[in-house]
C-alpha cells in the first residue's frame, strides 16, 4: 500500500449519495482484508448542505474517523465547489482529485446574492493546489446509465478505476451486487462500470 493509512475524502452536497459511496468503499476494503474507519459529516446537511466522508484504510492499525488537515491523499468530489472547499482544508500538493464537473447551486447563488464561480475557474483553482486532477462528467454518465442520481456510483467506479486503492474492481462489484436488487442493481453496476472505464488507464 502506498500510504499508511490511506486517507480518502468523498465530498458533495446532501442528497447526492455521498454516504452510500463511502459505505461501498469501506465494505469493499473490509472484504479485501483492510481495517477501515469512516467518519461521516452530514447531519442536517443532508438537506442541501455540504457533506463529506472521511475514509481511512490501513493494513493493520485502527484509525480515528477524521483525517487531519492537509492529509487527504485522494479526494473524490461529487460537485466542483465542494471539492474546492475540501481541498482548501485537506489537500496537500500530492493529493489526487477526481471531480464531477456538474455544479449544484447553493441557495445564495440561485437567488443571485452570490455568484457560483465559473466552472473552468474552479478547475484552474483546483489545479493550482494539486496538479493531479481528473475531471469527469459523472452526472451525464449516470444519466446515460439510466438516472442522474447514480452519479455517486459513477464516482465510485472512477475511484476504483483510478488504481489508487489497494484493491480491485471485484470487491466493489460484489459489494454493489449485495446492496441492491433487480434493475437498481443493474443501473448502479452500469454507472460504476462507466466511471471505472473513464479512469482505468
Amino acid at each position, binding site marked *: 500500500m502506498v500510504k499508511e493509512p490511506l486517507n480518502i475524502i468523498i465530498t458533495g*452536497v446532501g*442528497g447526492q449519495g455521498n454516504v452510500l459511496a463511502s*459505505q461501498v468503499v*469501506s*465494505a469493499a476494503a*473490509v472484504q479485501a482484508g*483492510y*481495517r*477501515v*474507519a*469512516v*467518519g*461521516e*459529516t*452530514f*447531519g*442536517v*446537511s443532508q*438537506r*442541501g*448542505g*455540504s457533506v463529506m466522508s472521511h475514509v481511512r484504510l490501513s493494513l493493520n492499525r*485502527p*484509525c*480515528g*474517523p*477524521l*483525517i*487531519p*488537515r*492537509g*492529509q487527504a491523499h485522494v479526494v473524490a468530489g461529487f460537485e466542483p*465547489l*465542494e471539492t*474546492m472547499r475540501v481541498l*482548501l482544508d485537506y*489537500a*496537500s*500538493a500530492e493529493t489526487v482529485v477526481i471531480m464531477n464537473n*456538474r455544479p449544484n*447551486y*447553493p*441557495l*445564495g*447563488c*440561485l*437567488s*443571485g446574492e*452570490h*455568484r*457560483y*464561480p465559473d466552472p473552468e*475557474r*474552479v478547475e484552474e*483553482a483546483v489545479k*493550482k*493546489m*494539486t496538479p493531479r486532477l481528473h475531471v469527469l462528467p459523472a452526472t451525464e454518465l449516470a*444519466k446515460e446509465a439510466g438516472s442522474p442520481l447514480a452519479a455517486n456510483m459513477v464516482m465510485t467506479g472512477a475511484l476504483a478505476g483510478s488504481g489508487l486503492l489497494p484493491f480491485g474492481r471485484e470487491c466493489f462489484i460484489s459489494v454493489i451486487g*449485495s446492496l441492491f436488487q433487480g434493475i437498481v442493481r443493474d443501473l448502479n453496476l452500469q454507472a460504476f462500470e462507466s466511471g471505472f472505464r473513464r479512469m482505468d488507464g
Partner: protein
Amino acid sequence: MSLAGVCQEKAGVKVALTGNEAIARGALEAGVAYAASYPGSPTAEVLGTLSRVAKQFNLYAEWSVNEKVAMEGVAAASFAGLRSLVVMKADGLNVALDFAGALAISGCRGGMVMVLGDDPNAHSSVREEDSRNLCKAKHLPVLEPSSVREAMEMTREAFALSEELELPVVVRCVTRVCHASGDVELGELVRPERKPDFTRENRVITFGIKLHAGQESKLARAAHLVCDSAFNSYTGPENPERLVIASGPCYMYAQEALEMLGAGGTTGILKLGTTWPLPEALLLEHMERVPEVIFAEEVEPFVEDNVMALAAGCLPGKVRFYGKRSGHVAGPAGPGIGELDPDVLAASLGNILGINYSPGTIDNKQEALSLLEDKMPDRELAFCAGCPHRASFWAVRAALELDGRGGIVLGDIGCYTLGMARTGYYLLQTVHCMGAGIGLAGGMGNLSRFGFDKPVVTLVGDSTFYHAAIPALINARYHNSNFMCIILDNETTAMTGHQPHPGRQHTAMGEPAHTVPMEDIIRGVGMPYIVQDPYDVEASIEVIYDLLRQEGPRVLILRRSCVLAAVRGKQKDRVYVNEDKCIGDSCGCGRFCSRVFACPANVWDAEKGRARIDEAVCNGCGVCASLCPQGAIMVERGV
C-alpha cells in the same frame, strides 16, 4: 450499511458496520429481547436496524411515541427479567428524565441498556448537549465507546453490567461513533429463550429515602467494578511526563495528535471507557505518577470536573490540570463548544507541550482562491427539491401578508425547523424543543387579554405532534387560547430517515398497526380542524387566511407525503422550462422560481436569461409550475 453484517452468524468474521449497526449487533450478541426508541440523530439507525432483524431474532422492536414511553416500555421488559434496550438522542433523555430518575432508584432486573446519542457540534440537532451530567444526576453508570468496534463490545457488555448492578447502564455515543463506520470482529450471536416473568411477588417501587441509600451503594460497587474494566486502558511510555485522559473518539484523536507532534515518547494516554462512576483507584494510580494531566473529551468538561474533584481530595496540589476549564483544550469556537478532532487536539497539546503544531497545508491556497474572485459561496441548508414544507411556508407567508396584522410564527423540531432560514422565508421566530411551539403558542394566545392582537401561528410536524404536542393542545382547548396550529403532516418522521409514527399503517417491525389518526385526537380534544394539500398553494393560502381570521384554538393539517418517500422507486414527473414563455428577470416574474421560491432544482441560466430545471435535483412535484406567473414551467407526467 450492511444488514447482512449485522446478522452474520459466524463469530470472528470481520465486517464493516456503522456505529449504529455495531450497537445493534452488540445488543443481538447480548440476546436483547425488547428494544424501543423514538428516532433521533445520531442514534436513529440503531432501532431501525433492530426492527429489520426483529423477526429473525425473535425480539420486539418499536418506534415509540416518545422517549419517555420508550424507556418505560423497555423498563417493563427488564422488570420481567428480559434484556432490553432503549435508544434516544440527548434531547430525548430530557423527555424521559422523570422516569429515568425514578428507574435509577427502583433499579431493574433483566439487563437494561440505554444508548444515548450526544451530538457534539450539533450536526443534526438544534443544540449540543452532554448527557453525562444528567446521568450523573440520576445515578446512572455511563460507558463511552471510542470507536465503532468498541460501541459493539460495550453495548454487549453493558447488559451484563446492568444485571450485576441491577441498574440500567448508559452507553453514551457521540455522532463520530454512531455515524462512523469501521471494521468490527463479530462475536457470538445468542438466542436465549424469552421467558417474561413478573408475578404478584415482584414489587418495583420507588418510595422513601431508604432506596436512595441503596442506590448510592450500587454506584459505589460500580465504581469498584469499573476499575478492572477492559474498556479503560493505558498506552504510552512506562514513566510518562504527563497523562492525557481521553474518552470517546477523542482517544483516537489524542493518539493521532501525539503522533503528529512526535510526543508519544513522553506523554501517555489513559483511555476512559467508563466515565461514570469514575474508576477512582485506577485514576489515582495513574495520576500519582505525573505532574500534568490533560483532558480530551466532548462536550462539557465532565470527566475533567469530576477528576479534578477527586484529585482535590486525594492528591491536593500535586497535579496541574489542562483542559476546558483552563482554556487549553479548545476548538475554534472556544473550550467546551463544538467538536474536537485530531487538529484541534494537536494544536491544544502542542500549546501545552510547547511544540508548534501547524496543520498540513498547500502553498498555492491563496492563489487558487484568488482565481475564484468571489468568496466561496456558502451552502445554506434547504428543504429538498419538491419538499411540501416549501409550499407550506410559502402559503403561510402569503396568507400572513394578505392578513396584514403582523402575525407571528412559532416553530418546532423537525425538517421544518429549517423554516427559520431562507428556505422557509425566515418565518419561524421560535425554535426550542419537541412540542414547545404549541405550548408557546398557547401562552401567546392567552395574551390577548392584555391587548396582544397579532395572530399567532404555530407549525409542528406530524411526528412531533404525536410526540409532544397533545398535552399543550388540551391545555389550549381548555383555556380557549387564541392561536392557529398548523400540522405539517408529511406522513413520516422525515428528518431522521422516515420512521413510522402512530399515524401510520405499519409498525417498526412492519406489522399492521392500529393507526391513530391525528384527526381523531384533534376531534377528541374538541378543536376544529381542516385538512389541505399544501401542493395546492393557492387553495392553502385561502384556507390559512380564513383560519387566521377566526378565534380560539384551531388546527390546519397541511398533508402531503415527504417527497423523498413519495418518489422512492417511482418514475418522477419530468419538469422543464418552456424558454419561449419564461420572461426571467423582467417585471412580471423577476426570477420567481430560482430567486424567491428557491427550490434547489429551479436554477437560473444567466447566459440565456431563462430559468432551467436541474433534472438531477428535481423531484417532480410541479409546485413551481403552478406558481410560475407565465405558465412557463411544464410538467410531463411520469409513467
